[in-house]
């Protein structure tokens, strides 16, 4: 399918900061084609934070890179779908146009702060670079602003000219956040920003992100595998499995009115807070091989509720409310509202 044909005008609403429709991304390698995203839909309303939850290989990071239009190509190919950022179609932009958007209208924080900064450039220069690039100002003009950004993320000015190796992991992640926020983006994509950090540092960073989000009034896509972090920072949650959103809703929808068996499995895999010694109930089996996706519902081989139909047809989307939807054969228009078979 040609990329351009796929843009079937998904009426981007003004209130949406990000609108991804039916995005399909493949990595075509020598070993075979990896189907990374298989028709993902994501919408983030202005000023809200969406948690993108899933396990390794579910397509979380690919989604983030796709929004930045930074999917490495080759081997990555955007097969179809559309991405609208503030009403503009990202996929139709030239590289030059993208360079005006990246770091300016949309920023991204990557997982590992240890490797995300250039080790041979002083940290303040790495912040100044993005300011100079987007605001077209001289180094002399950008320096005060960069120092201000550093201060805002809690790094004293006198350390600005140090190199990344002189900083701890938490401080590096603060620098990266300063870079991401330096040009006040509308949307911040945070790809597992605290996974590499210790819990106490993670708490500091999450706290800071929460405050900065408020201050900048920006929308956020929080990519994580940690449901605890989702609770901390997100308004909406999208659970993805095999490159597709299988359940989407508000925090309460997902945590209290869980619908999808996979979401339920994720919760059951975690120790129960009420009864920490109780045996865990892990999801059996493994993530499907991304080069060979099961037919029907991709989760059916691991699903305790699987029925015959699950192996044959991909389930449609059922809406329990305008924001809470689920893709599962256990539900139909009626049961999905009342809660169906899970957690009755």
């Amino acid at each position, binding site marked *: 399918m040609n990329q351009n044909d796929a843009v079937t005008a998904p009426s981007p609403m003004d209130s949406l900061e990000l609108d991804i429709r039916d995005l399909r991304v493949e990595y075509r390698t020598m070993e075979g084609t990896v189907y990374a995203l298989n028709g993902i839909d994501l919408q983030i309303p202005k000023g809200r934070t969406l948690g993108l939850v899933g396990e390794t290989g579910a397509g979380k990071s690919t989604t983030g890179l796709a929004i930045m239009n930074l999917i490495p190509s080759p081997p990555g190919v955007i097969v179809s779908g559309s991405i609208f950022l503030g009403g503009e179609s990202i996929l139709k932009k030239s590289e030059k146009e993208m360079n005006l958007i990246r770091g300016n209208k949309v920023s991204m924080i990557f997982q590992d702060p240890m490797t995300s900064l250039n080790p041979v450039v002083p940290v303040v220069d790495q912040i100044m670079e993005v300011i100079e690039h987007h605001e077209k100002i001289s180094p002399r003009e950008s320096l005060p602003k960069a120092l201000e950004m550093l201060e805002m993320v809690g790094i004293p000015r006198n350390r600005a000219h140090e190199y990344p190796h002189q900083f701890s992991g938490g401080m590096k992640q603060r620098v990266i956040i300063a870079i991401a926020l330096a040009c006040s983006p509308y949307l911040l994509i945070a790809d597992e920003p605290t996974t590499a950090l210790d819990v106490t540092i993670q708490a500091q960073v999450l*706290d800071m992100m929460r405050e900065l989000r408020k201050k900048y009034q920006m929308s956020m896509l929080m990519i994580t595998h940690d449901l605890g972090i989702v609770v*901390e920072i997100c308004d909406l949650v999208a659970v993805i499995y095999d490159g597709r959103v299988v359940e989407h809703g508000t925090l309460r929808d997902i945590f209290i009115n869980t619908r999808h068996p996979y979401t339920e499995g994720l919760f059951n895999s*975690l120790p129960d807070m009420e009864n920490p010694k109780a045996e865990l109930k892990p999801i059996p089996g*493994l993530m499907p091989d991304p080069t060979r996706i099961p037919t029907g519902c991709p989760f059916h081989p691991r699903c305790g509720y699987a029925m015959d139909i699950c192996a044959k047809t991909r389930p449609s989307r059922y809406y329990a409310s305008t924001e809470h939807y689920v893709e599962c054969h256990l539900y139909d228009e009626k049961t999905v509202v009342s809660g169906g078979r899970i957690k009755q």
Partner: protein
Amino acid sequence: MNTPLLEVKNLKKYFKTPNGMLHAVDDVSFTLERGSTLGLVGESGCGKSTTGRAILCLTEPTSGQIIFDGQHLMKLSPSELRRQRQDMQIIFQDPYSSLDPRFTVAQAIEEPFRIHKLIMDKRERHKKVLALMDTVGLARRLINSYPHELDGGRRQRIGIARALALGPRFIVCDEPVSALDVSIQAQILNLMKQLQRELGLTYLFITHDLSVVRHFSDDIAVMYLGRMVEKAPTEALFAHPLHPYTKALLSAIPIPDIDRRTERILLKGELSSPIEPAKICRFSNRCGECIDLCKEEEPLMHEVSPGHFVSCFRASGY
């Protein structure tokens, strides 16, 4: 039997660096009962992994005593120590880097036999490998696969099978599930619990993940900058954390429950340097409850309630 399986007394491990001695593990003592699990928690760089390795004498301790089943490990000759090690195994965090990429599953699992020159018969060894694969839930068809063909969970199962091969009584688990996805993590944790029940294993469970350690351990020891700051039975620790660091650590765990929000104690700053630390409370620079004494003397571990040890001047019983 009443004697503990493992007794660690005043264990120290210092490393030489250009800037001075790095006190990775500084005067750590604890005992470990047979069949129990001690969780060793703390943030990166606190010395928990070094403790685990020093106990197995994988890295030679600077000083202290390690008494395993009545044997003083540090007094053993290298050959005696090698024999003793059959009883003591380790599982690493990243099974990928601890497996030789050129070894098949079978070769990886039978390697301990070859190293210790046990079960020289090839057929016998093959049988044992299959039995181990069954034990850790690895499908037999994978016997000739290479590590890169397997996912993290399966690799970790190989790591466990290798550790179990020589029938040990004690296993150091160094962040065994940190690299795994939650669904796989739960599978491995369940497997390890099951093995403990069936084989009567004793675990030293090293992790930074407090919710996992709460689920898994009977006792928990918290380390900070090479020092053990608090040790207590799991539920006692969660119910009554006494050391300010433990309190902060517990409050920092993001809990996946929207109805339960604890008041978060945010720590200031970051870990200070473990190189030549001053003889004061090592947590004092980040502590919200710090008093003058903390900056003058180093607190010692003391028992404040039965089984609950803490090294803080301000901690008292409950």
